[in-house]
């Protein structure tokens, strides 16, 4: 079967984990790992036979067969990369907070944004909680959604730490824009316990129509959908009602591809990005892509 060529920009932890996930894809192959220095990530890619470059985005732009580019560099570099990729006719899957393109949560809105050429992966907390908010909203009408994301200190990188407001603000927006809540709030807590805790996300919503059975069924169906691309996504506490308020707790165990299993927060980002890539590749192969 023909495979669509994809590239990864940014050979850090996220880029490396993504590399292993795309190597398993039936529709994509990693045609290039691009960095700016000869880093351990570049070495790793090289050692398993992936073409690499330390010249940044240039060689990707010059490679006519690369159709999908995953950017796991940072918000600032992506602001530079995005217009270049667009001009070169390449689809961008943005794992940075730059958010130039629409937010994408594969289980929720992939089909609605398929015209875009740049897809933003929101935040790890958004990938974990927006599906739950959406699942409740479609049967009960969510007036307010609030999430608490707890991640192990070890899996919170410097980017998240230096700009933690970006996490809360972006996630809160996605609860509304993608999840359908009228109002959203997000909280993040870092916990240094050893051994590291699994990522846990609590979703509180206030609903118009508190039908417990409908809410439970909708959430359980949604959890299965997310599990199709994040196998370690689990319901820890099923939707539990208290008047018009519903509490649901999920946890995310990483696949352990490159990152440790407790880094569910990073795994759900790379898994969701790979799922977007998969859908884009399928569309290209079906001939409906550009």
């Amino acid at each position, binding site marked *: 079967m023909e495979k669509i060529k994809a590239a990864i920009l940014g050979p850090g932890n996220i880029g490396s984990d993504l590399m292993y996930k795309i190597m398993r894809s039936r529709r994509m192959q990693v045609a290039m790992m691009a960095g700016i220095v000869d880093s351990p990530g570049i070495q790793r890619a090289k050692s398993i036979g992936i073409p690499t470059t330390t010249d940044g985005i240039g060689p990707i732009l010059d490679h006519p067969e690369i159709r999908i580019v995953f950017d796991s560099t940072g918000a600032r570099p992506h602001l530079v990369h995005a217009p270049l990729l667009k001009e070169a006719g390449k689809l961008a899957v943005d794992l940075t907070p730059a958010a130039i393109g629409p937010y994408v949560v594969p289980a929720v809105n992939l089909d609605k944004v398929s015209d875009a050429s740049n897809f933003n992966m929101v935040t790890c907390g958004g990938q974990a909680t927006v599906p739950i908010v959406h699942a409740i909203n479609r049967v009960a009408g969510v007036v307010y959604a*609030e999430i*608490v994301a*707890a991640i192990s*200190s070890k899996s919170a990188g*410097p980017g998240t*730490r*230096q*700009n*933690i*407001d970006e*996490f*809360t*603000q972006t996630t809160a927006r996605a609860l509304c824009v993608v999840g359908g809540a009228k109002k959203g*709030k997000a*909280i*993040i*807590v*870092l*916990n*240094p*316990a050893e051994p590291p*805790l699994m990522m*846990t996300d*609590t979703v*509180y919503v*206030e609903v118009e129509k508190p039908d417990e059975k409908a809410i439970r069924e909708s959430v359980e169906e949604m959890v299965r959908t997310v599990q199709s691309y994040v196998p370690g996504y689990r319901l*820890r*506490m099923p939707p*539990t009602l*208290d008047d018009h*308020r519903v*509490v649901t*707790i999920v946890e995310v165990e990483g696949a352990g591809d490159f990152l440790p299993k407790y880094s569910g927060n990073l795994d759900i980002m790379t898994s969701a990005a790979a799922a977007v890539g998969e859908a884009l590749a399928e569309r290209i192969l079906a001939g409906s892509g550009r």
Partner: protein
Amino acid sequence: MMEMNRHIRVVDSTLRDGSHAVSHQFDADQIAAIAGGLDKAGVPFIEASHGDGLGGSSINYGRAKLTDEQILRAASSVIEKGALTVLLLPGIGTQEDLVMASDCGARAVRVATHVTEADIAEQHIGLGKKMGMTAFGFLMLAHMASPEVIVEQARLFESYGCDVVYIADSAGAMLPSDVKVRIEALVDAVSVPVGFHAHASLGLAIANTLAAVDAGAQYVDGTCRGLGGGAGNAQTEVAVAVLNKAGFETGIDLYTIMDVAEDIVEPVMQRPQVVRNASLIQGYAGVYSSFLLHTYRAAEKYRLNPRDILVELGRRKMVGGQEDMILDVAHEMAQTRR
């Protein structure tokens, strides 16, 4: 050797930590009366916020009766001498909230993180300084870290421009000897003043406060009548009396602060601020004080003993802000029982 009459600055947190004890239901009149009284007594820093800081009003931490802005305006309208102070936990509150607080007249900010996570506070401290505020770096649940780790984290705060670094015994789990080693290590390691925030879970809030100043702390926290999360805090009025007796100078008039506690704060209290079994266990098991009332509610809903829930939260090493895990633990315990 301590010099006599050393000046100790007291931060009164009745309108912030005390907010936990009234489930964040202070109204504007109560806030104005308390803030006005504290200011008259000469309290230099008057902290007012949701118990979990700016942006804390939520399902997870409890919705406040008033917005952050209403709380701050009610307090700032009556404060003439003291510095209106706000708490901000990065991950809950944002820089936007801090700008609002500054617009409402807040002149000091305490940026609080778990004791190992100071590096999430750099932006907020920087913004506070930029707006001309006094910035405190506040390390919570300090009993969970060694003096070495605390020093490393406090140095980060100092490098971000903090004017004061604090350690908070947020669970009330420390003994005076624990306070002493941590404060001494900090005083040696940083060039800014050091502060201490006590909780009363083990009945040691005042003893620990005294241990802190003896070890070189220049700032201490209190709340009138000890109003606060869990078993409550060091009682401001008692701390002032004890510090006076021990030869320290606070600049706070003892009779005035006693009257604020008895005439203004006591009437708004919803329950006696004493060490009940559940809050004793918070100190014993090292569990965040603010979890108490949420735990009582979960225990009632799932028909469990609050003590069992708290012990499990301690075993799991839950940190400040993880109130949602009270439900998780209670749910799991109820499932197991079936």
